[in-house]
């Protein structure tokens, strides 16, 4: 360790980079395959999977699959719906979950321990296993909207948003983060006469940038990427369908894989671009909330 041999050092550096690049290839290649395939006619796409051509923009390259995909399904509408549902759910979730976590962490009240335990226990209920009872429930709930009063939440945006707002993971993230904030801040503010609401708005929230970012990222990924079963059973009108349900439009008996790849790229690339633009924030915020177990 004492003497560094320059040649040896160079070699080690090269090895390190080689390892890093190799691992990177494992992560990138499948996504590269998706994007490259979306530019090829289906026949060629399938033949290319037997060689490195799968990852290269070679052969008959065009945007034809994209034109065909847009002709087959209202992709813009699906993406809009997914984004709307995502933004609606995430913003309400951050507000209500942080409020609850604030109460769980800083306030002392009867029944708190029980409520927190029950809430956290719901972490282990997979959504798929309660989907049917939930469907029966929302189909009976009343709603007052612009069009007046009606029974049943089906065929709407709110049926895709409201049941997803509060979740144990987001509350848990906030609780973990709040625990590490200095309690003296809260006490000092209270002594100075601030209300709990003021403490929440003026003191705690301004300090919570990282956990808000993490919660927003995790929840957005879930809402944008994973909403399939629920909208499938509660939304019958095309005008409310999100992207994952739209995927079904491309699986006819004869699957046009070129168009499938184009659709997958269209719904994935926006998230990837968003991620690449904000990757520092993504990683930094997840890191900062994960520190303390």
């Amino acid at each position: 360790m004492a003497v560094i041999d320059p040649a040896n050092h160079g070699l080690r550096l090269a090895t390190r980079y080689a390892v890093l690049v190799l691992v990177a290839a494992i992560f990138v290649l499948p996504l590269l395959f998706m994007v490259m395939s979306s530019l090829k006619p289906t026949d060629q796409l399938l033949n290319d999977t037997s060689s490195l051509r799968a990852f290269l923009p070679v052969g008959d390259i065009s945007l034809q699959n994209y034109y065909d995909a847009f002709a087959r399904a209202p992709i813009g509408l699906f993406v809009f719906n997914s984004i709307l549902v995502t933004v609606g759910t995430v913003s309400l979730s951050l507000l209500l979950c942080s409020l609850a976590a604030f109460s769980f962490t800083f306030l002392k009240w009867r029944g708190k321990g029980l409520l927190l335990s029950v809430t956290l226990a719901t972490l282990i209920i997979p959504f798929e296993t309660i989907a049917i009872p939930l469907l029966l429930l929302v189909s009976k709930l009343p709603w007052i909207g612009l069009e007046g009063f009606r029974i049943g939440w089906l065929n709407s945006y709110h049926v895709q948003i409201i049941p997803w707002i509060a979740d144990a993971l987001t509350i848990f993230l906030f609780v973990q983060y709040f625990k590490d904030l200095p309690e003296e801040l809260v006490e000092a503010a209270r002594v100075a006469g601030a209300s709990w609401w003021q403490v929440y708005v003026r003191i705690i929230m301004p300090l919570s940038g990282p956990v808000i970012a993490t919660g927003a990222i995790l929840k957005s990924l879930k809402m944008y990427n994973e909403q399939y079963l629920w909208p499938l059973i509660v939304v019958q009108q095309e005008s409310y369908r999100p992207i994952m349900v739209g995927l079904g439009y491309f699986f006819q008996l004869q699957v046009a894989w070129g168009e499938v790849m184009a659709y997958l790229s269209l719904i994935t690339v926006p998230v990837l671009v968003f991620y690449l633009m904000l990757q520092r924030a993504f990683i930094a915020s997840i890191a900062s909330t994960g520190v303390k177990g």
Partner: protein
Amino acid sequence: MARSRLTESNAAGWGFALPAFALVATFIILPFFFAFAFSLTNQRLISPNPTEYVGFQNYRNLLGLGLLRIAPVRDDAGEIVRDANGAPKYPRVRTFTRNNPDYPQYQGMREWFGWRSGDDRVVVLARDVIFMKALVNTLIFVAVVAPVQGGLALVLALLINQKLRGINVFRTIYFMPVVVSIVVVSLLWRFIYDGNDGLLNNIIGALTFGLFEPRDWLGDPGTALGAIIAMSIWQAVGFHMVIWLSGLQTIPPTLYEVARIEGANAWQTFRYVTWPGLRNTAILVLIVITMQAFAIFAQIDVMTNGGPLDSTQTLVFQAVERGYGKQDISGGSVISVILFLIVLSISLLQRWLTRERH
């Protein structure tokens, strides 16, 4: 710690927590209780027949087990009949489990697994073999994914924690699959695992100069679950890498200084400096991966539908298959309740094992 009176406030406490808790109670807890109630009835998804309370019958149908010892077939002279390899021949299990008045308790059961014991064959029978396989597969999935994904994530975090020019680019790339939908990932990997001209076969073939015999990764009961495990890890490992990375960065650099001065090698440094500093992170990573792994569904739904030969059946997949596909809500709900109880016990156990000792 004793809290001051300033933090005591029943009205405000309830008021702040109630909106979120009411939503959790309405949209998660209440439906779960419905599911539990269904599991005690013969409720169908949709049916003109009235629903009846059946007690724990659904649970017995799911969990029923039996043990059967089968004597080998003997010829008229009392000698054991053997096949060409000298293995004894046994009567088929179906002769005991189908309409055999001597074994009413085994009616309708099937062989789950069995072994030789002396000349006899011992067979474990299950009332619902598919459920048992789904249970075992799910446990295998969790038992492999939790440590391997956690471990690989740590290795990646250590790789990324090096002070090298451009390291952030690699960090960004390793995290990338996390932001891609698991459904999209599963569709892509079907091409990669394809048995004839899939990418994986071609890449391994090229690396071994054609020595490698192409495999049908998802079509072979021996490799299908492993293939899905590998893909699931690929998709999620970046997330846990970041969590580890944050843990690594909280370890004071001075500790590494000391280790270097003491002459510790790389392994010793990891063992005595890095790992102890990661304890809390490890607990978090393990718990999160375990919870996610128990819920495995989308990969199975897109890639294998539980096949081949039930080698990729999982609990959530079976719950959905029965509840929707076979219109049997009560059957699906029983699985949901059992899954909940299993995960609850495991997380209580994990909490007890990792409790802070004062």
